[in-house]
C-alpha cells in the first residue's frame, strides 16, 4: 500500500482516538450526554489519557508523513501496536471479570453486561487490527526473536 493510504489511515484513526479520549475525559464532568452511552463512553480520566496517547501517536505520524518525512511511518506502526496492546488489555480484563463471576460468584453474564464492555479502546482496536494486517509484517521484520 502506498504512503498516501498510510497517511489517511493515521489521520482518521488518530482523530477517532483523540475524540474518544476527549469524550472519555469530558464524561467525568458531564456523564449525561446521550451519545456517550451509545458509544460506550463513560467518565474515566486514565482511560481517556490512554486513548489520547494512542491518538496523539497516530496523528503525529500523519503530520510527519504529510511533511514528506518517510520515517513518520514509525508513529503509525507504534500507534497501531499501542492500540492493539490496550485493546488486548481491555479484552483480558473483561474476560477475567466474567470468568470470576461465572466460576466463583454464580452470576449469569447478561447481554447488557456484554454491551457495557464494548468501549472505544476495544472497538477502535479492531480498526487498528486492519492496519496491522496490512502493514504488520513490514513493521516486525526488523525485530529480533529473543
Amino acid at each position, binding site marked *: 500500500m502506498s504512503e498516501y493510504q498510510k497517511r489517511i489511515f493515521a489521520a482518521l484513526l488518530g482523530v477517532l482516538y483523540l475524540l474518544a479520549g476527549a469524550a472519555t475525559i469530558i464524561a467525568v464532568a458531564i456523564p449525561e450526554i446521550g451519545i456517550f452511552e451509545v458509544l460506550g463512553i463513560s467518565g474515566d480520566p*486514565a482511560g481517556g489519557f490512554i486513548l489520547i496517547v494512542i491518538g496523539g501517536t497516530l496523528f503525529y505520524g500523519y503530520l510527519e508523513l504529510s511533511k514528506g518525512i518517510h520515517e513518520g511511518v514509525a508513529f503509525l506502526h507504534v500507534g497501531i501496536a499501542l492500540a492493539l496492546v490496550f485493546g488486548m488489555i481491555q479484552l483480558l480484563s473483561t474476560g477475567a471479570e466474567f470468568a470470576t463471576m461465572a466460576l466463583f460468584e454464580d452470576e449469569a453474564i447478561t447481554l447488557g453486561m456484554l454491551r457495557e464492555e464494548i468501549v472505544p479502546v476495544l472497538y477502535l482496536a479492531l480498526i487498528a487490527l486492519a492496519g496491522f494486517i496490512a502493514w504488520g509484517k513490514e513493521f516486525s521484520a526488523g*525485530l529480533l526473536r529473543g
Partner: protein
Amino acid sequence: MKKAITVALAGNPNVGKTTLFNTLTGSRQHVGNWPGVTVEKKEGIREYSGRTIEVTDLPGTYSLTAYSADEVVARNFIIEDRPDVVVQVVDASNLERNLYLTMQLAELGRPVIIALNMVDVAEGRGDTIDEKRLAELLAMPVIRTVGTSGEGLLDLLDAVVAIAAKGEKHTHTIGYGDDAEALISDLVGILDDDPDLAPRYPLRWLAVRLIEGDADIRRVVSGSSVGDAVSARLADIDFDEYEATLADKRYEAIGAILPQACTICVRKMTGSDMIDRVVTNKYLGIPIFLALMWGAFQLTFAVAEPFMAGIEYIFGWLGEGVAASVGPEWLASLLGDGVIGGVGGVLVFVPNIFILFLILSILEGSGYLARGAFIMDRLMYAIGLPGKSFIPMLMGFGCNVPAIMSTRTIEDERDRLITILVNPFISCGARLPVYILFAGVFFGRDAGNVIFGMYILGILVAILSAKLFRSTVLPGESSPFIMEMPPYRIPTLKNALLNMWEKGSTYLKKAGGIILIGSLIVWFLASYPAGVGYGSEESFAGMIGKFVEPLVAPLGLDWKIAVALIFGFVAKEIVVSSLGVLYGAEEGSAALSDALLADPALSAAGALAVMVFVLLYMPCVATLAVIKKETGSWRWAGFSVLYGLVVAWSLAFVTFHVAGFFLGGA
C-alpha cells in the same frame, strides 16, 4: 639509544581495545590505578623495529567531555602526558558513533591513528569501507586490524613508528558555525595572553571546552591570569545550547565523511530504530511510558481476579474444615486465625505478584525498560539528578534490596548515596498486596487506577527527595549517563516465565518463612493475656496498638492498622497478614475485605492514607541492612528511616484530609 615511543590506546567501550592491547604487548603488562581514582590503568611494552613502544590502555569512553572519571583520565593523559601517538580503536560496524570520539581526539592536537577493528563484522553484513578514502578525509592513517588474529598489527606498528618519527600535530579542525567560531576566536585571543596556558593546552580545544560548559576546564582557567576576562566573555552563554550545537556539528562532519568512505554504512531504519523514534520522542516518550505502566497495573489487578477468587475459595474451604474438625479451641484459633488468616491473607495476592513480574519480564525482555530509563533520564537530568539512578529505581519495582546493591555501578559517591536513599520510595512487590486489598475494597473498578497512582507517587517522592538531597545535604552536579540501547526483541514466553518464577518464588518462600512467623507472633499478641477476647483492645496487640494509635489517628487510622504497620517493618507483606490475623479473617482475603469494609473506623480516605503510608513509611529490615552495608554507616540507615516516617506521615495526613474532602470520611 632512541627514546621510547609512547602510545595511548583510546576507543569506545567494547570495540576490541583490550584484545588489541593484549595482542600488541603480549605478557609485558602492568596493571595499576590512575592517580587519585579507582579507574584501572594498564600499561605494556612492545619492541619493534629497534624501538621500544610503551602502550597505555586508556579507559573506554564514548567522548572526551568531563562527565565521568574515565573521560577525565583519558583526556588528561593525552593532554598532560603528551603521548607521541594516539591509536583509536574503532568498531567498523558502528562507525558513526565511534567517529564522534575521533573528532574530539583530533581537537587535542596529538597525532592520531585509526585502528579499524571489526571490519569482518561490518563487511559480513554488506558494508564496504574504503579506508584510504577515510584516511584522506580524516587526515590521519587508518589501518585495518583484527585484534583476535593479530591481522594488521604490523601495519599498525609501522604507522606508529612512522608517525612518531614525523612528530606532526594533527591540525584538522571542525567548523562550528559563525556564531560559535567567533566566540572560540575571542576566547583563544584571551587565553593566549596567559603564557602558561599555551604550552600546556591546545588553546582552541580549551576554548571549545569552555563554551561547552566543562566545569573541569573552567576551574583550570579560573585559576589563571586570564580567568576574569574569560568569565566575563562567557557571562551570557547558554552552555547547554552550545554543547548541543557543537555536538550537532561534529555529527554533521561525520555525516559528510561517512557516505564518501563507506557504502551502506548509513542504513535504512530497522524495526528497532522505528520504535525508538516514537518511544523516545520528546513529546510522546513519557506519555507512552506512563500509558504502558498503567496498562501493566491494570492487567495486574484485573487478570488476577479469577485466580485470587480460586485461592480465596481454597482457603475458605480450609478455614471451614479447621473450624469444624480441630480439637482445642486455641489450636483451631491458631490454625484458623493465625496461619490461614495470616499466611492465606497474603497468598491470595500471589497471582498479582506473578502477573506483575511476568509483565515486567516481558517489558525487560523486549528491550523497552532500557528505553524507560533513557526517557526518564532526560527528565531527571533536567532537574539536576543522576540519570543512572533510574535503573536501580526500575529494579526497585521488584525488590529494593537488589536495587540498592545495583547502585554500585554509579561512580560518583554522592549520586550513589542519593540513589540509595530514595530507592525505598519505589514501590516493591511486597507492598502490592496492601494496595490490592485496600483499593479493591474501597475503590472497586477504579482500583487499577489507584494502584497505578501509588506507583507514580512513589516515583515522584523519590525524584523530589533526590532533588532535595542534592540541594541540601549532598550538593554537587549530576553526571549524564550514556547507555547502549539493546535492540528490541520479541520476548519468548519461556524466558519471561522463568524470570517471573525467579522473582515471584521469593515471595512464596517468604510466605512460608517470615510471614508465617510474623502471623504467629501477631496471633499470640492478639490472643493473650489469657481470657481476653481475640483481637480485642485488652489483648497485647490491642495494648500496643492503643499506645501507638494517637500517632496514626490524624491519618484516619485505628489501633489495628497501627499494629499491622509496626509489624510491616519486618516485611511489608506482614501488613496484610497482620490485618488478616487481627480481623480474624480465616477465610482468606474475601472475609478480610468484608471485615475492613464493615469497620466503621475505616473510610475510603483512610484507605488511601494507609496505602500512602505503607508506600513511604520506612524500608523493611532487609532493605535497612543493605542500606547500612552499602553506605557503610548506620547514620544513613537511620536517616532513611526517620526521613521516610516524616514524609509518609505528612503525605498520608494530606491525603486523608484532601481525599476526605472529596470522598468523605475525614
